[in-house]
């Protein structure tokens, strides 16, 4: 192997051989279905659920997998300021152009081949006109821009994720609009083709900066806020207990990320209110966007919260400094939960201060007040107030839940489990769309689901309680939780369930929904099993 190009290709193949073989196996299965099982010439309905399950979902999953493989996403820390391009490759005696170009070429080729193979094997003849060139080019372009944007060093932690998501969503939107307006293939190719050299230049620039060790630091721009935060959180006195010390540690380590991200995004969202003065519907869409920002951002910051060693991108183990703290694993988790609560509250404080100010300054308060008055007239003041408070509490709890619900996976420190769960989640999210569409399109399915709802809820409750019982047994056997913590935790959970049940009964006092259904919903809504599993996960990682 005397060529750098071959060496880079070999590394991709060697490291991801099982995944790439699985992709080849999938294409083989599809080819078998296409040529041996389906009747020759039988048209394939691209809008059917079967097509979604056999082609759309696996194809999208494979595309996401290829994005991660060729942008080195499996090895790097997406939330870090530093480039995720492997630093070990910067010392290789090859040009920056080669470092950026070869992975881009291989990735683009892989995505283009994936499309062409899938089109040839899966949807031919489809009965519908399926384009050949531009989807392949779109896949390659998305991959190339993903590489360029993820290899770029950024000035703020987490900024990479936001920039990448926004840029790729913008590119995707342009393409969706083009499809909507039936733009012809040559035009699509003309729009997409120039993206490749542009993405290559951006990637080359990114790798060159990363190779020179250039990592911009824009945290200074927030120095005043940072200084205030430092003054507020810097300890000048002694901690009254180890638990308080650990909670402070967690806050300083992870707690400020979510409020900072929300504070960064919120002004851009609320600025749109100035454009929406004459469009009440748009005002509420902007407000909804602002309200879902904390839970949405929490999903990203949760990755760093659940990562035991945030400073090392490819290490999942608990660092000795933390592992040797004379605290139980349960106490270490309690500190994380406490930090998540403060972090969620701080983020929501920002939202709750910024929204009224933006509504007032933009002159859109009357629109909101008018809608509030109508709600008040429709359901009465007490219910309207409770509804608003419930929605707000739901958003805050969901932000906190987003921050902590993946602890039981991330803290295990097992790479196969963490990456497997990411793949499963992606697959679930991809499957969710077609399933929801299927339900919406089928009144009979909706009726069947409505009739079976109590049974489904009861099954889920049974699953949740069984998992919780198994986890509680393990916690007890390993003495990870004391008897008092068990009793207090169980009592707290029961109180939360009862409180939610009471509110639900009061709010939904209708004969259409049985009370036991509300009880099941309350049991499912209050976190139990996954949270209880977090100390087990940490202990599994801490004492390997």
């Amino acid at each position: 192997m005397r060529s750098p190009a071959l060496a880079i290709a070999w590394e991709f193949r060697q490291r991801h051989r099982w995944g790439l073989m699985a992709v080849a196996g999938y294409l083989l299965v599809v080819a078998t279905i296409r040529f041996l099982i389906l009747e020759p010439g039988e048209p394939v309905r691209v809008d059917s659920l079967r097509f979604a399950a056999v082609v759309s979902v696996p194809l999208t999953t494979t595309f996401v997998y290829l994005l991660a493989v060729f942008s080195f996403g499996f090895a790097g820390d997406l939330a870090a300021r530093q480039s995720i391009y492997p630093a070990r490759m910067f010392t290789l005696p090859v040009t920056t152009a080669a470092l950026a170009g070869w992975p881009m070429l291989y990735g683009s080729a892989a995505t283009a081949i994936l499309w062409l193979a899938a089109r040839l094997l899966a949807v031919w003849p489809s009965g519908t006109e399926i384009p050949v060139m531009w989807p392949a080019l779109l896949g390659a372009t998305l991959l190339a821009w993903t590489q360029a944007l993820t290899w770029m060093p950024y000035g703020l932690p987490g900024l990479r994720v936001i920039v990448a998501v926004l840029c790729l969503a913008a590119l995707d939107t342009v393409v969706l609009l083009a499809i909507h307006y039936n733009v012809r293939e040559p035009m699509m190719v003309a729009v997409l083709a120039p993206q490749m050299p542009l993405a290559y230049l951006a990637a080359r620039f990114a790798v060159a900066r990363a190779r020179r060790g250039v990592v911009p630091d824009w945290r200074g721009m927030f120095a005043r806020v940072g200084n205030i935060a430092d003054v507020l959180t810097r300890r000048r006195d002694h901690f009254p207990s180890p638990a308080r010390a650990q909670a402070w540690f967690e806050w300083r380590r992870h707690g400020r990320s979510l409020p900072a991200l929300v504070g960064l995004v919120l002004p851009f969202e609320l600025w749109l209110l100035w454009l929406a003065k004459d469009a009440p519907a748009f005002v509420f869409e902007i407000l909804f966007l602002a309200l879902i920002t904390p839970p949405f951002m929490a999903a990203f910051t949760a990755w760093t919260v659940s990562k035991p060693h945030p400073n090392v991108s490819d290490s999942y183990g608990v660092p000795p400094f933390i592992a040797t703290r004379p605290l139980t694993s349960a106490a270490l988790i309690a500190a994380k939960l406490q930090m998540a609560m403060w972090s969620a509250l701080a983020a929501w404080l920002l939202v709750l201060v910024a929204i009224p100010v933006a509504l007032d300054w933009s002159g859109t308060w009357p629109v909101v007040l008018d809608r509030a008055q109508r709600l008040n007239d429709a359901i009465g003041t007490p219910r309207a107030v409770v509804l608003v408070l419930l929605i707000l509490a739901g958003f805050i709890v969901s932000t906190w839940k987003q921050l902590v619900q993946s602890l039981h996976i991330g803290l295990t420190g097992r790479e196969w489990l963490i990456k497997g769960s990411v793949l499963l989640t992606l697959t679930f999210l991809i499957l969710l769309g077609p399933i929801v569409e299927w339900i919406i399109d089928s009144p009979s399915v909706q009726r069947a689901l409505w009739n079976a709802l109590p049974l489904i809820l009861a099954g889920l409750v049974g699953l949740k309680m069984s998992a919780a019982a198994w986890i509680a047994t393990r916690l007890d056997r390993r003495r990870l939780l004391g008897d008092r913590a068990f009793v207090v935790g169980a009592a707290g959970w029961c109180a939360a369930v009862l409180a939610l049940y009471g509110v639900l009964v009061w709010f939904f006092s209708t004969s259409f929904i049985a009370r036991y259904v509300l009880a099941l919903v309350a049991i499912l809504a209050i976190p139990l099993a996954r949270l209880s599993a977090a100390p087990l996960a940490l202990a599994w990682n801490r004492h390997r």
Partner: protein
Amino acid sequence: MSESVISVSELTRRFGATTALASVSLSMPRGAVYGLVGANGAGKTTLIKHLLGLLRAESGSVRVFGLDPVADPVGVLSRIGYLSEENDLPGWMRVDELIRYSRAFYPAWDDGYADELRQTFALDPTAKITNLSKGQKARAGLLIALAHRPELLVLDEPSSGLDPIVRRDILGAVIRTIADEGRTVLFSSHLLGEVEQVADHVTMIHHGKIVLSAPLDAIRDSRRVGERVPSLDEIFIALVGMAAAPAREA
């Protein structure tokens, strides 16, 4: 004989096909300085991680102060001062924050002693850990390992990052002081000359097995050739062969 601070019995640990520790048995009575020596990869850090509860015994048993460090991490770790080979102190903390944070975990923390150590090590309380040199980071780690006057001090390759003069002065003084007070020190190193200066008792480990464990004086006496007392380096090479000999410090 006084009670054992550390008691390891038939401890075996494998990482895949590699046997890191093979039926290791060890007992360390209170009040001495133990040198744990061996080449890189011999199993020293693996053994120390078992003592700290960072690794679970696959077979055999580990007891520190008579407690299982995995089952009772608080009971064991609150009595141990540990300086990690990796020296992974959080870079975002300032020195004074590190001291205050660490203080919360140890009821026996001695503020006066911590301040004395900070001054001896010339650590600026307002300096961020990330801005400290490697040697200063090691000193900061040593400070928090010592300031609660632990019953057992575990130093895992503490020499890395310290220049020879400071290393000799600081480690010699610290280890002697602690041993004089009836505390126990476990000092792991592959620099045998350093261990020879401070250890009362030496345990040599090679390919996961203990090849020698005895008081240093007894080891020297047993290997004496006429009037000449061989160095620990020579004894180690004689025991495990040239190929495995650790680097001689420059």
